[in-house]
């Protein structure tokens, strides 16, 4: 159960249902995240297709499902989204929250409306971190404070989230007093 975040930019993921009135349904999952979509996929009676970003995994995947690697999905999805009929929904499942929002951004850029993009709660607590001092982006951050690999500063990982960067912001934790370093904490 997700608690209501105190910082309002942090995404909240509402339960997702299939709208059978919609003409075309596109399911996109990061490698390993398809199981969260499989019930929805099965319930969906309309025209549907499924894309996995990554390799084939141990997950049970639908027949005819497409695979694409992380390096080329941007271009491929850009083209795919632009060709969707107006009555289309997109379902996104990710291990990482950054994956979900990277796809979301591509869809918005291709002209989809926010309400057409259904996002499932990401499966891990891994965050992409934006260092506010040197602008370095770091993947897979799971605890705070975290040392920025770009500028080596110790960053407090905040809950303030940017959909443009698919990232949370990090700000030096001990800028006021170098000795003031709180213990490491696992992120939610």
């Amino acid at each position, binding site marked *: 159960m997700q608690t209501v975040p*105190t910082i309002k*930019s942090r995404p909240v993921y509402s339960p997702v249902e299939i709208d059978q009135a919609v003409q075309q349904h596109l399911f996109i999952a990061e490698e390993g995240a398809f199981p969260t979509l499989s019930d929805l996929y099965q319930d969906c009676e309309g025209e549907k297709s499924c894309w996995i970003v990554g390799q084939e995994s141990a997950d049970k995947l639908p027949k005819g499902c497409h695979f694409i690697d992380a390096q080329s999905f941007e271009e491929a999805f850009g083209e795919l989204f632009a060709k969707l009929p107006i009555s289309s929904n997109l379902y996104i499942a990710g291990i990482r929250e950054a994956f979900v929002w990277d796809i979301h951004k591509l869809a918005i850029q291709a002209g989809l409306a926010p309400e057409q993009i259904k996002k499932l709660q990401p499966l891990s607590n891994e965050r992409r971190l*934006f260092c*506010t001092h040197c602008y370095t982006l770091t993947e897979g951050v799971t605890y705070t404070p975290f040392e920025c690999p770009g500028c080596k500063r110790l960053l407090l990982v905040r809950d303030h989230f940017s959909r*443009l960067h698919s990232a949370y912001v990090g700000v*030096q934790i001990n*800028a*006021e*007093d170098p000795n003031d370093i709180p213990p490491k904490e696992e992120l939610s």
Partner: protein
Amino acid sequence: MRVAPKPIQTFRDDFTYTNSDDAIKRFPFPFPEDEYMYSVNIEPHALPGPEGTVYEHLFDIDEHYLSEMAERKIVLEENPQRCLAMPHMDLACWDFIDRAMTTMSQDYPEYFSLQKDGDLWTWENRLLGIHDTFTFGDSDTLPQPALEYMGCQVQGDIAILDQRENDLFLDAGIVTCPADWSLAFDAGMSFSEWHGPVPLAHEAGIFERALKYLTAIPVGRPVRRLNWTLTINARMDTSPETYPNWGTDRDSITPENIGAKVYLRVELQVLDRMPRSNGLLFSIRTYLISMNDLVTNPEWAKRMHRIMKTLPPELVEYKGLSRYHPMLIKWLKQFDLEN
């Protein structure tokens, strides 16, 4: 009489910034009551406002003009990403150029002039020695990107908000003197997202009401509000980007230096509808006054004490005052003995 821009003073390193008596007199003291709490404190910005006040003109040009423009240049040289405009904001940037050049040349004809020959415009800024002829709307005819060009000629930060889906998006800006927010990170955010970190106000429904009000602003009917915080030293660039440079300042306050080092930082925020793009121009004009200068006005001194004494702990924390807040109350008490 209006105060003329004085020679360049600094907002960093040796901090030579000072306020003249006239600048102190016209300082926009932001507290109408003895207690401070968030409210939708937005009001019409009817122009021209009272003569000589910071509300007289859309863009207030004061004695710090040359200093602030020099400071902006330093910040942008250090980090060009403090100015950005998404491609769809080009027209809105030209709206800003039009609004700034038109009003500034009318309001301060001794400093600025604008001549139009159809789309061929000639702009002169005598304070900065700028004299350019360009084709309105054609960014290639300007010596710099449109937003940077004009933003480097007005005091205060500029954000330009795109309006769509009944919301406002932070899609362009030149932000070199922010009160601890990052344009590079907040770029593209909706109104509620970029205010995400602000405590208490979301729950009070402030942003919902403010957004309704702001999206309904018509052309030619700007509105304004004041916002405030405290800053150590006359530092304009209190951005998160440079926080490692100024964070320790907060730990440097003593009862002896508190009057000189603690500044009240007030933002005059003006929102103005842009006619071509339907964007909202959001100017954030920052004024700094040291506690020593502030207490030369006994009414302000008293009120400042009461405001500090009753400030909710969440705001003390959010505004970054925790390290010196108790000391400041103690120091201000001498001006408000009965309280």
